């Protein structure tokens, strides 16, 4: 029998800010290594807060988050930084450094963590990542403000995969993009995932069409808990009222 290996284990995760109402009310989630997992849900259900717990940006009020075998709550600052090197993150608005050129943005994580490489080697890796996401060389020396939103996403993705991460997280990667760019980003996600053996992709999204097209697993959050976790087929077959409502609305809108 095949044994599943998990990249992320979330156990009874609870979070409240300043002792006020809980945003996460006991999340249990096990994300399988090497698979694409979508985290979906209505707005305000705690998706982004959960993502920030996986990154160790937020500390849990109670419960545990284990990433690649490291229990984040037990790590000191330096150990947390070591774990984060294994992550790549594509932010919703790409979060590119606006005073760095496109190439410098992609070189940034390499400059920080691959000092063993020469500058030329780092530049070469950055260029190859940019080529991989389909960005033409004529844009390399432009500032992020001089390229389109779709291109910024590509650069953000190139930067996220610069260090060859084991886990890549996407925070609302297609929100606010037109259908053509959305499809392009979806294709990039799948190509990036396939290009690296064993890479785990975690995508926080509202885009159900993409979820059903790309996901191996889908976790739906509702009111700070996991309402349903399963394959796309299990989602479509679910008779849970909220799941049905979300799926019907999401698919019909497309």
């Amino acid at each position, binding site marked *: 029998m095949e044994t599943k290996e998990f990249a992320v284990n979330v156990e009874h995760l609870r979070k409240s800010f300043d002792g006020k109402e809980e945003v996460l009310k006991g999340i249990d989630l096990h994300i399988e290594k090497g698979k694409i997992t979508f985290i979906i849900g209505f707005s305000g259900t705690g998706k982004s807060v959960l993502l*920030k717990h996986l*990154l160790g*940006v937020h500390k849990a009020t109670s419960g545990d988050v284990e990433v690649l075998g490291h229990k984040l709550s037990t790590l000191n600052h330096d150990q947390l*930084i070591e774990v*984060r*090197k294994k992550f790549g993150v594509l*932010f919703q608005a790409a979060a*590119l450094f606006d005073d760095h050129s496109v190439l410098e943005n992609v070189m940034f994580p390499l400059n*920080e*963590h691959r000092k063993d490489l020469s500058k030329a080697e780092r530049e070469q890796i950055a260029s190859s990542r940019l080529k991989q996401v389909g960005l033409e060389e004529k844009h390399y020396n432009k500032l992020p403000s001089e390229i389109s939103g779709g291109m910024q996403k590509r650069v953000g993705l190139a930067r996220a995969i610069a260090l060859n991460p084991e886990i890549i997280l996407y925070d609302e990667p297609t929100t606010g993009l037109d259908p053509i760019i959305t499809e392009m980003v979806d294709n990039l996600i799948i190509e990036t995932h396939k290009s690296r053996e064993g890479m785990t992709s975690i995508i926080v999204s509202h885009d159900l069409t993409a979820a059903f097209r790309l996901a191996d697993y889908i976790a739906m959050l509702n009111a700070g808990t996991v309402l349903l976790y399963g394959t796309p087929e299990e989602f479509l077959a679910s008779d849970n009222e909220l799941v049905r409502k979300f799926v019907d609305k999401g698919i019909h809108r497309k």
Partner: protein
Amino acid sequence: MENIMNKTKEIINDFILSIGHFFYNTIIIETGKIGVFFIDSISWWFKKPYRWNEVIYHMEFVGNKSMIIIMLTGGFTGLVFTFQAWVGLSIVNAENLIGPTVGLGITRELGPVLTGLIIAARAGGAMAARLGTMRVTEQIDALEVMGVDAKNYLVAPRILASIISTPLLTAVFDFVALCGGYFLNTYILHLDPAIFLEKTRFFVDPSDINEGLIKAAVFGLFFSTICTYRGYYTKGGAKGVGDATNQGVVASMVSIIIIDYFLTKIIGMFKGHGL
């Protein structure tokens, strides 16, 4: 009548309570948070990775790019201060003391304080706005998740650069202001330049210049810490960035004026002349 008394009591109680809240939240809590932020940030001066390139980059921003404005302000401050000193001293026929009056006033007080205020507005405001924008556009989060400590990369070099650059700018301010004073004394008021120079040399001690430079370094530390703190913890969008910049600059300027008094007293105690 009793109602009016009760209402008055209530208003006085609320007023006292609001003062208490202000002191507790703004002075004690906020000062504590800024203190922790400062210690946390400067601990990176002694830990790898060292950010010398960033320090030099920010010194160029705080220092070089402020040079023109500092020279301009210094020159005119020297001119106006010398003129006012002449107005006052000529009443008692003590024009020969214009040089030392201007020299001591500039090197010990006006130089560091005006430089601090100008740099807090120019560079401090820019620091708060920059970090605030980085916060609301998730660039700081991006740094953190890339395994780069944001305080190490963004805050510690800015504070160090400000501590180094502000005294250097103050020295420029002092020099230009004294040149302005000399010019007014010699070419506008037609007073003896030799007396101006000799009396200044006699009364202005190197320790007076040092006092101003020490003050400037402390002002650099304060405005950069306050402004980076405000920027680092910006919340909201463009409004948040605007608020952070405004609060950072105002708090820095007020702090500089208040700290100046205490620094003057402390340095005076060391020099043996008190206040």
